[in-house]
């Protein structure tokens, strides 16, 4: 086996196994920073040995075994260095683990819980949103700092620093490595869902840069969502989020022209939608609905996305149902952005005047002051009402406000066409 072949295999194994590895180790040592270091040590050992020994039959198990030995050494060393070290003492007592084999076996028994604990820790509210995103991609997505930096168009040093600081913050706050319970669980789960959806959205409509979409980030988020859906099967909103992402991702290749320009939903060639993903999305939505209870915000948004996915042509879209779903969403997440989307649906269901009325009520909202989609939507509605001068002015304003160059081009093109 060549060095390159071994390196390729190690890369792939890392991507597949690193989250479980780090999660299992974090439970033993109680610190995700130390856990990641130990996992990295195992990776280095693989890089040293595999090119000559060949890739082992079960590379994931090999990495786990190597890392476990190091974790046990680490715990022992720490214990000897400081016999009063309460945390580690308690860890070992709590689990009534003494022989190495039991400690090793204990890792395998809790993979699901450990991964969930890792997700909750990486998305802990003591961290900034940016830090949660970076840590989640790093520890759960198995991305390198380089890959994260490229995805978010920042320097590698920035991401490295963000991750180091995040780990320090978690350690300083004594954030326990565990799945929260009771009322805290709901709030903390919201943070996990939010982080995953943020990653997805950064890929789906990049807020900055030359490209309108960055599909790799969407894929990373989908993968995280699918993993979470396996770990927290009883939670409707987890399936709701997965449904939303699957259905939105089904449009990825239809929403960009060959020249890289964005194509809006109603103008998309529905033959280019990905019906495999739509099928998965509708199935996930059905799972969310089967959990019963009122729709949560992600399930509602997925239900809206499903209305579009089920329509074979733009004209067949059930706008009345979409308006009703937005009514529900406004109740759950009262936000001017949701109101704006509802206005679009209203305009489609009941005519542009109905939509414009709502949009006009939003123009004074300070939260939307710099938001390019407000003048963009207003411009569209005005154009439909034949008020072309006003429409052009709104589209020009929208073009000036957007940070994405592709989107700016589209808005200017629309303006010129009027």
């Amino acid at each position, binding site marked *: 086996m060549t060095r390159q072949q071994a390196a390729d*295999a190690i890369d792939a194994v890392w991507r597949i196994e690193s989250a479980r590895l780090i999660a299992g180790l974090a439970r033993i040592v109680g610190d995700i920073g130390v856990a990641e270091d130990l996992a990295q040590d195992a990776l280095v050992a693989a890089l040293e040995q595999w090119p000559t020994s060949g890739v082992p039959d079960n590379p994931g198990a090999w990495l786990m075994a190597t890392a476990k030995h190091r974790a046990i050494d680490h715990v022992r060393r720490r214990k000897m260095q400081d016999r009063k070290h309460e945390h580690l003492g308690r860890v070992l007592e709590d689990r009534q683990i003494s022989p190495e084999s039991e400690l090793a076996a204990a890792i395998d028994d809790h993979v699901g819980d450990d991964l969930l604990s890792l997700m909750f820790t990486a998305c802990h509210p003591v961290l900034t949103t940016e830090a949660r995103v970076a840590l989640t991609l790093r520890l759960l997505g198995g991305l390198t700092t380089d890959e994260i930096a490229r995805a978010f168009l920042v320097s590698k040093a920035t991401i490295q620093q963000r991750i180091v600081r995040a780990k320090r913050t978690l350690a300083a706050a004594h954030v326990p490595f565990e799945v929260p319970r009771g009322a805290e669980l709901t709030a903390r789960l919201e943070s996990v869902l939010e982080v995953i959806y943020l990653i997805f959205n950064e890929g789906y409509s990049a807020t900055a840069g030359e490209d309108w979409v960055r599909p*790799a980030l969407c894929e990373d988020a989908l*993968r995280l969502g699918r993993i979470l859906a396996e770990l927290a099967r009883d939670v409707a909103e987890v399936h709701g989020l997965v449904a939303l992402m699957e259905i939105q991702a089904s449009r990825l290749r239809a929403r960009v022209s060959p020249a890289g320009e964005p194509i809006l939903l109603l103008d998309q060639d529905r033959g280019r939608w990905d019906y495999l993903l739509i099928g998965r999305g509708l199935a996930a939505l059905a799972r969310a609905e089967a959990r019963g209870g009122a729709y949560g915000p992600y399930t509602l948004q997925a239900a809206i996305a499903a209305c579009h996915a089920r329509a074979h042509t733009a004209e067949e879209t059930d706008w009345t149902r979409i308006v009703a779903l937005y009514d529900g969403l406004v109740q759950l997440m009262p936000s001017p952005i949701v109101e704006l989307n509802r206005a679009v649906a209203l305009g489609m269901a009941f005519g542009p005047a109905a939509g414009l009325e709502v949009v006009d009520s939003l123009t004074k909202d300070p939260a939307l002051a710099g938001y390019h989609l407000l003048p963009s939507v207003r411009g569209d509605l005005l154009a439909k009402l034949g008020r072309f001068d006003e429409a052009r002015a709104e589209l020009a304003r929208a073009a000036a406000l957007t940070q994405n160059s592709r989107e700016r081009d589209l808005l200017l093109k629309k303006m010129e066409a009027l």
Partner: protein
Amino acid sequence: MRFMTIVKTRETDAQPSPALIDKINKLSEDAVKKGVFVGMGGLGPTSQGARARLANGKITVMDGPFAEAKEVIGGYAIFDVASKKEAMEWTRAFLEAHIGLWDHDLEVEVRQMMDDPSTGC
């Protein structure tokens, strides 16, 4: 990015043992848990299938079995992964599962699916 892995083998009457089926089920379960599984399927015997061919502008249809075929497609799996390397690792694990439990040679063709947004639009 999505990869279809296509399993080719000589057509045989041999049925996979429960141990092999169990191993493959565990593998797909693992792929589901790791968020990369899209779909997997085994194909029935060619005696129940057919071939349609376009040659010189004429379509001909032929019922199975395909006795002359050295190898036939036995099944497929679709993985949604970050790289070809990763698709290869899942394929390696799939072949690994057969060692000692399946007497016939296997070949897996790994192909990226082109209807995939990451390949460009």
